[in-house]
């Protein structure tokens, strides 16, 4: 038996004992999501237990070093863990911008003190982060951001406004881009800082979206004090950190559809439409569209895996995250269009227990942001044209 087979057997045995029944099977609704943080909300005690057990083992961040609370797994071991989790249909133990975005940036750019202070809390799901990037005047042109941080010796005073800050109203801390040099060219006057959302002067206002939900906020900073020890990377070179983190964010958004995909589309359609005498979905045109989508999804999952392996082997072009972001978000929009078509009248409900308060319709509308947040599809195509295809003037 190879080491990997041994690891699989151990993992399977551990999960059998430690994965509570409440977190097995497709997620019914957003309430199943485990985001952690100081004000963590768990649907059931089983959900809490699942986070605690996985966090203690470092398996919420399987490939991070053990020294910072991570699982210390090799890429191959992490794949085994992921496949064992899929096998028992385990729901994610932690959804976390800390794990997906900030953590990798801290590992690459953070000081030892910052790593020791923040990473273990992230792994255990004890701290929930939000991302202060976009501003009302800086969307696709992110580097045009205007939030100012004025040097006060041992700290900065930050003033400005962020927008589309995901879950700012539920976050404990923020990782934030601020302008620390107003004279330099726009990319060279930005710094990457961290601060507590309970610092005086921070206010948030949720924005109601077309889904009727408010995952995004406006976030205001009025004379917010930020300690200098919470600068990540070099002063005025925060754009380097921002870009590095964006690559992780983009991969994450691209992969979100695959991570979050509940029941297979074909199953949903089967329940709703039924099968004909030949055992095919009783809607040949829709069946064909679903099959094409599923084929693309299988191919896309292979692309996610291949990119991860290329990164590990040092063979990945940094801009390839833009491909995953572009393709994955467009794919997820297609998936939800098809889910709506498959659901038909059933999927039109907006309220009521049967539809989990219009889960299908609200999820469908939410996916429309996938190709906007983290950089629009058009911005991703620009990046690919410039950095990978090296087309002139891109």
């Amino acid at each position, binding site marked *: 038996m190879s080491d990997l087979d041994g690891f699989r057997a151990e993992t399977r045995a551990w999960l059998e004992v430690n994965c509570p029944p409440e977190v097995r099977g497709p997620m019914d609704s957003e309430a199943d999501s485990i985001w952690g943080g100081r004000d963590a909300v768990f649907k059931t005690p089983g959900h809490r237990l699942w986070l605690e057990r996985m966090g203690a083992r470092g398996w919420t961040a399987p490939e991070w070093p053990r020294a910072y609370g991570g699982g210390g797994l090799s*890429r*191959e071991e992490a794949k085994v863990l992921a496949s064992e989790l899929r096998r028992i249909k385990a729901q994610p133990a932690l959804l976390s911008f800390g794990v997906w975005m900030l953590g990798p940036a801290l590992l690459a750019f953070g000081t030892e003190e910052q790593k020791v202070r923040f990473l273990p809390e992230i792994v255990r799901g004890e701290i929930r982060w939000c991302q202060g990037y976009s501003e009302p005047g800086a969307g696709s042109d992110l580097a045009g951001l205007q939030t100012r941080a004025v040097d006060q010796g041992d700290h900065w005073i930050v003033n400005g406004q962020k927008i589309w800050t995901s879950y700012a109203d539920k976050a404990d801390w923020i990782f934030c881009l601020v302008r620390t040099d107003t004279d330099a060219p726009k990319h060279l006057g930005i710094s990457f800082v961290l601060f507590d959302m309970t610092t005086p002067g921070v206010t948030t206002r949720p924005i109601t979206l077309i889904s009727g939900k408010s995952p995004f906020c406006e976030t205001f900073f009025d004379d917010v004090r930020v300690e200098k020890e919470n600068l990540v990377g070099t002063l005025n070179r925060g754009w380097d950190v921002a870009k590095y983190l964006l690559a992780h964010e983009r991969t994450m958004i691209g992969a979100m559809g695959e991570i979050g995909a509940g029941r*297979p589309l*074909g*199953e949903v*359609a*089967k329940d709703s439409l039924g*099968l004909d005498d030949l055992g*095919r*979905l009783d809607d040949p045109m829709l*069946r*064909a569209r*679903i*099959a*094409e989508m*599923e*084929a*693309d999804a*299988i*191919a*896309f999952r*292979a*692309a996610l*895996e*291949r*990119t991860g*392996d*290329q990164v*590990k*082997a040092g*063979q990945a072009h940094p801009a*390839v995250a833009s*491909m995953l972001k*572009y*393709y994955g978000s467009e794919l997820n929009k297609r998936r939800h269009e098809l889910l709506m078509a498959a659901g038909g009248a059933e999927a039109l409900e907006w309220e009521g227990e049967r539809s989990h308060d219009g889960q299908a319709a609200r999820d469908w509308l939410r996916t429309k942001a996938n190709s906007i947040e983290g950089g629009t599809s*058009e911005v*991703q*195509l*620009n990046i*690919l*044209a410039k950095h*990978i*295809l*090296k*087309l*002139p*003037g*891109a």
Partner: protein
Amino acid sequence: MPLILTEEQTMLAETAQGFLAEQAPLSSLRTLRDTRDPDGLSRDLWRGFGEMGLAGVIIPEAYGGSGLGAVEAGVVAEAVGRSLAPSPFLSTGLLAARALIDGGDAAQKQDWLPRFAAGEAIAALALDEGAKHRPDKIQTRAERSGNGWKLKGSKALVVNGHIADVLIVAALTDDGLGLFLVDPKASGVSCERTIMVDAQNAARLDLKEVSVDADALLGPADGSGLDRVLNLGRAALAAEMSGAAQAAFETTLAYLRDRKQFGKAIGEFQALQHRAAHLYSEIEITRAVILKALQAIDAGAADAALLASVAKARAGKSGELAVQEAVQMHGGVGMTDEFDVGLYMKRMRVASELFGDAGFHAERVAKAGGY
């Protein structure tokens, strides 16, 4: 296993690409076409495949091959696709070799595999019968007759059938579908060469009461032999199509950088940049699932057939997009015979049909999903 090529596989890719770039430039395809070459391919090139160890990539070392797997087969096929070189690599080195390795007896293997590996013999798979790939609707029958079998039926799209030294014929027995080793010179076999749109060759075969010995049946007549041949064939052909798509795309990118209109390179126009970036994404995502399918075949994974179908479906869709964009972005010159992009378009059309088009394979995805 990481979803990237190993160092050895990367070296094999470089060897195969280098060999084909030197020995089979696009001009050689044009020469074969324009001189109406009786073989339709270069036997010297096939012997070169043998000398380089490419012809027998999956053939066991005991029979003179390299004893490698599906991933290596795909690596060579991708290089073939880039070069558009007509060769018996797929029909002989992969399909017939797979059928014989799995189902041949010792004498049959000894007869053929060393000659395949050396690039000295050519084999053809006689499978399809109608306009479309429908392996579950095969009409060709194999009836027991004395100690052997009698085959009757007709076949179409038999790649390299007109010059084959040996045929592998799919025929229905009372038990199920079997693969039969048939001598093309046997009484009752007639063959009509057809030159296809891509200047490669496929034959129409007629089998009239063709007698073969009992041992002509390779393996059990339960369809499993053909399934294994097709899994490899589909995934490797997808790799070949991916190679052709990449080459067409690279040619197009170079044109976008060079061609000037309105006083600037046409690649500066965002209308074309976005289409090129979209096409890049389609090609790369297809490459990922092709490698996944090839690895799954080597691992004997349960989802190998599904992944091979996804690979072939995606290779068809992204490949067709690549060649259509290539012609459109080249503008008028893309329509000329002199420019190469049309050659990729023609090859892609043929390869799309072979072993099932995107629709055929999407159908298999739906069936696998139980809907």
